[in-house]
């Protein structure tokens, strides 16, 4: 009459086995697509978050344009932290964001950097028009946020026409930093937060906020997330004071 | 001419060439079955291969010494070579082939080494502007010989020069070889597996087998032995 009583020990063990496979069921891996300029801050935040929540964070860092494209093509990701609103708009239009999770997280400023041993320092953006600055590294100016911000700033200052032939486009803002650090270009425009990480480059001048477009880093949970609850939890954490404190440590400004 | 091979060894695939002898005659024949090392011996003398051991000396010149790692390059030896396949340069015509190794006569004694004269002696004047590949077997042979002679060698090596010719052509070629000896006074080392050729041309025969000297004799002896 009772089939269940006929279940032997071996079967019982097999049935319970999944629950014995470590704490893996109670912890998840979340994939975060984050703009390249957030590299160091995100690594530190990830370490803290993993300890507190038990969830593991897989960081995919690169130009926001490339990351957005990957999300559009179906790359599995839980959270997207972009360096400009345009990329987030594109995803929202395609219905790839979880409604209600989008918010502006951070802001930043632009600086002009030169190789550490450079003799000539531009004191302001207009100085870049001098003939000594033959090559100017910028992130790709049509698609990568840092490059778009830089180009728009130079356009506002009436310098773009003069400088656009000197531009060496790079794949993302960290590549811009690397190009300047290698000494193979004469100057570059990156976020102040990148310049703070520089070892072989120094800040020559800051581009005043009045001359730059509004810089905003939006955050959202993605529709493709397999763990939307945990993803929301992570998104909330990134907006919370402890995380914001770490961002500030690296030079990021709060969302404006 | 005095060609001395002193305890010369050359390791070939299946066996080792080992010779210790002196060649002094005007025309020396090297006789032996195929694969007995005859071609390798000529390569050694010409400077195209280095001996594994031993010394080679031609008159006053040290050609090679394995112990002291001395090796006189082929281009400096002034030893002419007519290989079995003739190696006529296919992209050059007869005249260009002939003139390839040509050196201006060293002395008046060598005045007869002019291209025209040698071509006349070898009866290849009408062929001078022809393409080498369009010549008959016998004509190619004579061109190859003439080319070697024109480099004014002090020794001429011939590797089976008549192996691709029929007996009629062979008979035709023999006088030319005599002329090389008589008119140009160049000593010859003549390799073949045909005993009749040796009798017609050589003063002495060295018999090789599997790289070793088997005997040295008058050419006639080979006919009777066979």
């Amino acid at each position: 009459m009772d089939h269940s009583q006929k279940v032997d020990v071996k079967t019982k063990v097999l049935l319970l086995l999944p629950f014995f496979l470590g704490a893996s069921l109670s912890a998840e891996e979340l994939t975060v697509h984050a703009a390249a300029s957030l590299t160091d801050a995100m690594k530190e935040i990830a370490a803290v978050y993993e300890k507190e929540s038990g969830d593991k964070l897989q960081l995919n860092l690169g130009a926001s344009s490339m990351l957005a494209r990957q999300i559009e093509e179906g790359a599995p990701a839980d959270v997207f932290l972009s360096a400009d609103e345009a990329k987030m708009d594109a995803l929202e239009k395609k219905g790839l964001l979880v409604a209600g999770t989008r918010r502006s997280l951070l802001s930043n400023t632009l600086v002009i950097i030169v190789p550490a041993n450079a003799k000539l320092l531009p004191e302001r953006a207009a100085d870049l028009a001098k003939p000594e600055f033959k090559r100017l590294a910028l992130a790709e100016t049509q698609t990568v946020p840092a490059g778009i911000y830089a180009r728009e700033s130079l356009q506002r200052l009436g310098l773009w026409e003069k400088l656009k032939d000197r531009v060496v486009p790079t794949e993302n803002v960290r590549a811009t930093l690397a190009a300047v650090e290698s000494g193979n270009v004469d100057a570059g425009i990156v976020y102040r937060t990148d310049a703070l990480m520089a070892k072989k480059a120094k800040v020559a001048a800051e581009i005043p906020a009045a001359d730059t477009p509004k810089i905003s880093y939006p955050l959202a949970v993605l529709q493709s997330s397999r763990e939307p609850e945990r993803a929301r939890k992570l998104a909330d954490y990134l907006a919370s004071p402890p995380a914001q404190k770490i961002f500030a440590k690296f030079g990021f400004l709060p969302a404006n | 001419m005095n060609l001395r091979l002193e305890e010369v060894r050359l390791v070939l695939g299946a066996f080792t060439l080992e010779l210790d002898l002196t060649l002094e005659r005007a025309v020396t024949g090297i006789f032996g079955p195929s694969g007995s090392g005859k071609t390798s011996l000529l390569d050694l003398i010409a400077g195209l291969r280095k001996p594994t051991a031993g010394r080679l000396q031609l008159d006053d010149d040290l050609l090679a010494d394995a112990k002291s790692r001395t090796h006189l390059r082929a281009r400096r030896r002034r030893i002419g070579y007519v290989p079995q396949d003739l190696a006529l340069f296919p992209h050059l015509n007869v005249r260009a082939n002939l003139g390839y190794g040509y050196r201006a006569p060293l002395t008046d004694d060598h005045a007869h080494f002019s291209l025209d004269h040698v071509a006349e002696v070898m009866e290849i004047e009408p062929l001078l502007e022809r393409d080498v590949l369009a010549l008959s077997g016998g004509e190619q042979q004579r061109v190859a010989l003439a080319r070697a002679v024109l480099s004014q060698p002090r020794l001429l090596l011939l590797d089976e020069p008549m192996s691709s010719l029929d007996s009629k052509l062979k008979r035709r070629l023999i006088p030319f070889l005599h002329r090389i000896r008589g008119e140009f006074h160049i000593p010859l080392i003549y390799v073949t597996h045909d005993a009749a050729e040796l009798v017609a041309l050589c003063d002495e025969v060295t018999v090789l087998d599997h790289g070793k000297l088997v005997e040295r004799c008058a050419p006639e002896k080979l006919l009777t032995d066979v």
Partner: protein
Amino acid sequence: MSAETWQIVFFTIKVSLLGTLLILPLGVAVAWLLALREWKGKALLETAVMLPLFVPPVATGLILLMLFGRNGAFGSALDRIGIDVVFTWRAVVLASAVMAFPLLVRTAQAAFQEVNPRFADIARTLGASEWRVFATISLPLAFRGVVVGAVLAFARAMGEFGATAIVAGMIPGKTMTISLAIYQNIQLGQDAAALPLLLISIAIVFLTVLCGQMLLPRKGRR
């Protein structure tokens, strides 16, 4: 087909031709050296020459960047005399040349090896120096194969991407080759714009390699 596309195509052809011409003398010489019978250190040279074929192209690009960048061993010397390499058309030529070199050498080496070594030997007994043997015997007899090597090198240069991206960047109008332009279009999500470039590059390379194949010596000695 916009003016910009034509500019990219002609630029790519120009730098590929230049790169191929640049490596011809050295490549043919090295090929001949490697085709000679054994000599000391031959295996070492052979391996060094083949490296760009097996090392990831971006790694080769990085090595070139380190050597020819303004702070690099060669770059600093060139910078002193006012010559910029990285991020200019010169870097494109350099990358193409380095990546095409092994292909040229390999093909030319095979061509030299096909020539009966007896010809060179007899030339030596006739008193020719090694240079004369090379110029009057080996090269003329291997000529067709050497030309095929040059053609293949050109095709490889046309398609060069990885090393070029690293050492020359993708500067529109200055270092943008067909491959780089296709890549950039993909990056920008403009796949359709890449199509004309894609078709042209396939057409050029197809024709080039076809010509090369037709020039190949037929089986059997001349």
